[in-house]
């Protein structure tokens, strides 16, 4: 069941009706039932895997918690975490780790294994709930939480339906606290309205923008023999629009639905394309993944005995200031490899969503002392420099998107080569619009993107540590009529301009397939 489908809206309406009709203490069971039904809609394998993952998570948590010897707790944590991660790797990356020759093929371009059992059995959203359940086991081991004795609470934590497919990733401490609130939540029109506006906004981003931009993206990425020169940056630019509106649109739907149930989920985006640096970008894009990897991977690695030893050695060798950066760089390399690998296991993801960003961030850190000296001399506090910083960061992101969207590394490198290749089709309207992007579609796309930019500009807060402003609160402050008018406008615009209808299947969310 896609999150952008009439079926999903009917499903949510039914869940809401039941949720607010039953006694408050039964609400959590409604959410549980809805989550299992939703997982069932995603397929038999998905249902089986979320159940296995929940059982593993439950047992792992109990055995890792306080009250036993450290050795036994460590063993339980390692075994259950390894099984959890191994399940993800075995199922999701079977094609990548199949054999040495396949690995080489993948490295140099071929994608094989199309008939493997695992290819069909990949449970939807597994990358998200496996990390979330792994976090639960580690939290128990690190005594951040007390292991939950009630299996159904752990089951609900790992299967909660709005976030099952694409996150946002959550911790047990915060999500279970939200579940507790369901006993107190009162039905209110304003809660339902706010949630509905976010859901409509998500549908708008996905159906009006992302799926429309995809026409150009699909044409150019599929054929960079003919679409060369300026077509390549154009295709990558459209992909940036598509990916942002696709993933952030998905999050609007997820967070909006959950808000209607009175269960608040963390934001996953905070105006990422306004970021001044790559480091800042990653604190504004897919925020919960970054936080998860920081807390559960980078910190433990940095605090491990080997890294501390390396740090002591490098400080003695290169001086305190430079030497302490060595273990940081090693931990960052591990972190970014993990980010890339998590996105899909193939080398194009490892490079495009991982290593490339590691290089940008480390270069930024290495040259920071120099930049610090230069900035006052070039008027770095002026608006033009601020705009330059955002544009530079955006362009650096585009260089990664070339890899991210390509099927293989070879494909991505060929795309870069295509920028300088001659002999492709001419850059003109007739060729460009052969993608399906005619004048009407282009005008709709530009207008819709402008609306998104305006909304993000309003929400933007310079400090990435602070929450973005709420556009819904702003509309509400202007009066309920304004909020309802905005809701109607978004809904009607989506109905008229959305890419859907008879014979059209909305593309699945890009991150739901990760």
């Amino acid at each position: 069941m896609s999150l952008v489908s009439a079926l999903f809206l009917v499903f949510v309406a039914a869940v809401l009706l039941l949720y607010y009709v039953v006694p408050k203490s039964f609400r959590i069971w409604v959410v549980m039932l809805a989550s299992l039904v939703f997982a069932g809609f995603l397929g038999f394998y998905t249902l089986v895997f979320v159940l296995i993952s929940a059982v593993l998570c439950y047992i792992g948590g109990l055995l890792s918690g306080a009250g036993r010897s450290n050795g036994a707790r460590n063993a339980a944590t390692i075994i259950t975490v390894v099984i959890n991660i191994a399940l993800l790797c075995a199922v999701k990356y079977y094609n990548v780790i199949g054999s040495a020759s396949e690995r080489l093929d993948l490295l140099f371009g071929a994608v094989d294994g199309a008939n493997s059992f695992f290819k069909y059995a990949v449970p939807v959203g597994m990358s998200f709930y496996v990390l979330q359940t792994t976090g639960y086991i580690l939290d128990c081991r690190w005594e951040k939480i007390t292991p939950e004795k009630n299996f159904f609470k752990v089951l609900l934590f790992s299967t909660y339906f709005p976030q099952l497919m694409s996150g946002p990733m959550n911790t047990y401490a915060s999500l279970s606290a939200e579940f507790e609130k369901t006993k107190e939540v009162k039905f209110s029109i304003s809660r339902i309205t706010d949630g509905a506006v976010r859901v409509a906004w998500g549908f708008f981003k996905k159906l009006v923008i992302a799926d429309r931009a995809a026409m150009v993206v699909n044409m150019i990425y599929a054929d960079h023999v003919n679409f060369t020169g300026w077509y390549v940056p154009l295709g990558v630019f459209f992909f940036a629009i598509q990916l942002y509106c696709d993933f952030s649109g998905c999050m609007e739907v997820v967070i909006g639905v959950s808000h209607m149930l009175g269960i608040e989920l963390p934001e996953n985006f905070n105006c990422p394309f306004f970021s001044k640096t790559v480091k800042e970008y990653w604190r504004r894009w897919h925020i919960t993944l970054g936080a998860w990897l920081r807390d559960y991977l980078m910190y433990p690695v940095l605090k491990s005995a080997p890294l501390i030893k390396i740090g002591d050695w490098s400080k003695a060798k290169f001086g305190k200031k430079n030497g302490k950066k060595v273990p940081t760089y090693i931990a960052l390399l591990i972190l970014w490899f993990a980010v890339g690998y998590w996105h899909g296991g193939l080398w194009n993801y490892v490079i495009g969503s991982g290593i490339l960003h590691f290089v940008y961030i480390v270069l930024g850190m290495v040259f920071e002392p120099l930049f610090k000296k230069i900035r006052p001399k070039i008027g770095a506090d002026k608006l033009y420099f601020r705009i330059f910083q955002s544009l530079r960061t955006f362009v650096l992101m585009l260089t990664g998107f070339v890899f991210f969207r390509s099927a293989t590394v070879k494909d991505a490198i060929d795309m870069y080569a295509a920028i300088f290749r001659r002999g492709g089709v001419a850059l003109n309207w007739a060729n460009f619009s052969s993608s399906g992007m005619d004048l009407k579609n282009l005008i709709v796309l530009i207008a819709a993107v402008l609306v998104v930019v305006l909304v993000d500009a309003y929400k933007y807060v310079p400090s990435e540590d602070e929450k973005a402003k709420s556009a819904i609160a702003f509309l509400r402050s202007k009066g309920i009529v304004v909020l309802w008018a905005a809701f109607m406008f978004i809904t009607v615009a989506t109905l008229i301009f959305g890419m859907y209808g008879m014979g059209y299947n909305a593309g699945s969310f890009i991150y739901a397939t990760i």
Partner: protein
Amino acid sequence: MTREEIYVKLNEVFQDVFDDEDITVNDATVAADVDGWDSLEHINLIVAVERCFGIKFTMGETTGLKNVGEMVDRIIAHLG
């Protein structure tokens, strides 16, 4: 060790890690108050504090400390 004695040593650790002799911290100090205290430098700070006091923070403490006051509470708890 009293809270005051812990703060004397803790200030030295902060000054050393962040290379700034003017830093003084108190219960309410948070990362945003100290120039350079970001997610990467946080671990260098934690390791330096552990070495100074001869203790070992758990990962839960490492990622869950909300301010310096909580850090001092945990140091006192570890020192017994």
